[in-house]
């Protein structure tokens, strides 16, 4: 029967022409991406996502045309009288659609493979697998949903009504609709997240978070598309099946509800709504800025402040679970048990659920913005506090896909009242921003050495500046702990220094071996010049569209975006962030040299 359906398809000139045009369009758009100039693995992975909106429309109308043939040919009644005839007939048509989708997937994989080969010198399985997951979730499953929707719409006998429904559905899943609803939801994140259910065709290729995370392929994305697929299957089961239709429809409906519930659970999936103009969308792009500019009283973000700290933390014992969000149980040992009030600083994204003392008794606490205030009733008796908290940040993500928790981020409670907003005004007061070399402040961590014992429960391999005593279990003394993980993270030894970086970041992995060697040469000279033996360098993947260049210079590790390596030298010389005025023109040009070499 499948063969006959294929024969029927090939004899239908309109369908064949539409399919040929569609594939021609895909291939023609993919071809420029094959040009070796670009060569960025991350961009190659996400470029095919540009096809999502048109593919959605194409498959909906294509499958409508395919499935409505029976009604138009008046064969429907005969098919319906055959045992499971309609289901079998639809199944064969669906197989044809799946076959076309498989072919599309193959094209994308071929494209990705070729790009990988150019950029990385070989086809690497983790890159390929990430790309396949990306295409499956964001393109193929969306196409399948569109096809099933076309099938459902073909049940409408009136052709004009059917077309009107399909046009309406295309509008519902369009950027326009989503943008309008985002404006209606205001600042309610839950409502926004609910509206994001319609965000199937709005995640385009240029919404890459950064070159470590790249593009979200988390469970929430799968749940989003599966919700819609099972919703349509519920409708189809009810209308197409002849026997036990209520049973199957109920099962599909139950799965739909379950997927909706799962989708609504808190998640830290990172994404950027590049084309949205609504001001109240929280995404990785400006989540931080938006929070700190609207919660000024709770964060003191409008003025320059010095931190207030009247105790120190001597030890952290942290048990961190990373899945959809971060959940942490952190024991904090303080050096001054006699204080009546303890103030801690913890990023506002992490909400404390309880605080206990060493005996396990609940303590009263107040969490406002980035600060937690503890006023234990029996002061002087507490040298240890246990914090239980959970949350997610889209900018500093901690999910099953990737982890970016640098030392300067208060993902563990810092002692004292600290101003955690990383803003120029915060750090430099009234100074002219243009004076600052390479936008962005020098970031500070806890500021003193402490013992850390951190266990991370995650399916990813984590990298940290602390020694790893067991898998994802780190223990040591340091002035800050950085935790990083993602599919493409790679650690390599260069002149005795561990450099941790992403394979997908174009500044690290370029087209050919020569430039790769140059990069290593630059690292080697940087390491030797600055006596970095024994340290770890975390090179963060560039954040899309931002000029942020993070710099954290700790005692045992550096967190920076390449190639900000030059600033470390200046920091060592002067102990402070460099300014243009302090450098001669020659020095500036010399500082910019590594950057120029890479961009060439």
């Amino acid at each position, binding site marked *: 029967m499948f063969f006959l359906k294929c024969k029927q398809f090939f004899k239908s000139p309109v369908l064949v022409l539409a399919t040929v045009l569609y594939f021609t369009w895909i291939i023609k*758009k993919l071809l420029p991406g094959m040009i070796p100039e670009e060569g960025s693995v991350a961009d190659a992975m996400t470029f095919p996502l540009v096809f999502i909106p048109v593919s959605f429309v194409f498959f909906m109308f294509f499958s409508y045309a395919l499935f409505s043939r029976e009604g138009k040919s008046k064969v429907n009644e005969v098919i319906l009288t055959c045992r499971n005839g309609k289901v079998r007939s639809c199944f064969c048509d669906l197989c044809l659609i799946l076959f076309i989708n498989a072919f599309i997937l193959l094209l994308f994989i071929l494209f990705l493979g070729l790009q990988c080969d150019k950029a990385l010198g070989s086809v690497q399985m983790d890159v390929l697998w990430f790309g396949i997951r990306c295409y499956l979730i964001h393109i193929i499953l969306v196409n399948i949903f569109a096809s099933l929707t076309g099938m459902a719409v073909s049940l409408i006998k009136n052709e*004009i009504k059917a*077309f009107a429904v399909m046009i309406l559905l295309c509008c519902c899943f369009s950027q326009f609709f989503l943008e*309008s609803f985002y404006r209606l939801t205001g600042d309610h994140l839950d409502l926004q997240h609910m509206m994001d259910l319609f965000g199937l065709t709005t995640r385009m290729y240029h919404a890459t978070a950064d070159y470590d995370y790249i593009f979200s392929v988390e469970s929430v994305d799968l749940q989003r598309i599966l919700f819609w697929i099972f919703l349509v299957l519920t409708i189809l089961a009810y209308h197409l099946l002849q026997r036990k239709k209520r049973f199957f429809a109920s099962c599909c409906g139950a799965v739909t509800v379950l997927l909706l519930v799962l989708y609504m659970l808190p998640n830290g999936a990172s994404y950027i709504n590049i084309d949205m*103009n609504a*001001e109240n969308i929280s995404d990785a792009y400006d989540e931080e800025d938006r929070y700190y500019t609207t919660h000024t009283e709770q964060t003191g973000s409008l003025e320059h402040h010095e931190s207030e700290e009247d105790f120190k933390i001597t030890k952290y014992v942290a048990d961190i679970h990373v899945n959809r969000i971060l959940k942490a149980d952190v024991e904090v040992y303080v050096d001054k048990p006699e204080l009546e009030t303890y103030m801690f600083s913890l990023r506002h994204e992490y909400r404390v659920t309880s605080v206990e003392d060493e005996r396990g008794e609940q303590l009263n606490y107040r969490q406002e913005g980035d600060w937690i205030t503890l006023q234990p009733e029996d002061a002087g008796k507490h040298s240890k506090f246990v914090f239980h908290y959970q949350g997610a940040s889209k900018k500093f993500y901690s999910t099953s896909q990737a982890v970016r928790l640098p030392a300067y981020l208060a993902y563990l409670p810092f002692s004292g009242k600290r101003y955690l907003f990383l803003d120029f005004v915060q750090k430099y007061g009234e100074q002219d921003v243009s004076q600052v070399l390479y936008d962005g402040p020098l970031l500070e961590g806890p500021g003193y050495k402490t013992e850390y014992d951190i266990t991370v429960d995650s399916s990813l391999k984590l990298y940290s500046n602390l020694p790893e005593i067991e898998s994802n279990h780190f223990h040591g003394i340091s002035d800050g702990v950085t935790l990083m993980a993602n599919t493409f993270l790679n650690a390599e030894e260069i002149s005795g220094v561990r450099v941790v970086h992403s394979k997908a970041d174009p500044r690290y992995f370029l087209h050919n071996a020569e430039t790769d060697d140059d990069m290593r040469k630059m690292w080697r000279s940087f390491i030797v010049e600055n006596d970095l033996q024994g340290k770890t360098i975390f090179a963060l993947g560039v954040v899309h569209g931002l000029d942020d260049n993070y710099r954290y210079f700790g005692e045992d590790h550096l967190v920076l975006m390449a190639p900000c390596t030059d600033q470390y030298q200046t920091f060592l010389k002067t102990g402070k962030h460099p300014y243009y005025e302090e450098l001669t023109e020659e020095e500036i040009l010399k500082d910019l040299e590594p950057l120029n070499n890479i961009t060439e």
Partner: protein
Amino acid sequence: MMKRFWLQLKGMGIMFFLPILGYLLFIPFCVMILNRNIEEAEQRFFTAQHMCYQFIPILSTIWMYMFQKEYVEGEGREILILGRKIPLFSFIYWILNLPFIWASLHILKDTEGYREDLFYEMLVASFMICGLVFFLNFAISSIALSILLVVLYIWLSNVDIENVLVFRNGLQDVQQASQYLYVVLKGGGLMSEQAAVYSAMGALFWLCGLFKARRL
């Protein structure tokens, strides 16, 4: 003739009110929502203009589709003898849209930066699109396909076509292709070159449609 017109309107049923709801409720509501947090006058007007360009042309075709569908693909179309009056009625259905378009824009008039030219641009755009619909309906004898093609054209006109289509010579080709999209009317007003071109195109479509309809 009035009786015939009345019977046609009655035959549309509740669907007759769809364009009216679109003009008077949907467009102003959407503009209000989209302009919610925008303060710049130019941006506010741009949003209103964008909404009008997206929806007014398609709304102006609804009555024409509903009138012509019986003549194009209705099962009893062989007995519906209207002959020369098909183009006349089609034109009347286009004219019927104009007061509602005016009313819709009048509601939007309070938008800062509003320009009077927008009404004339909508006049030309809806004239051209309705002419295209008239021609397509009788040329391809399929209402559904005609709707699809027109919606596709309106959609292509309102998105960034460089993201959708493939252009060999980049910006040059994009600019050339853009000339065929009715959104070039934006900002031109009634006396602009684009308005003249599109009015002429519209008139040509109407004439071709007239020719096809009379051959029925």
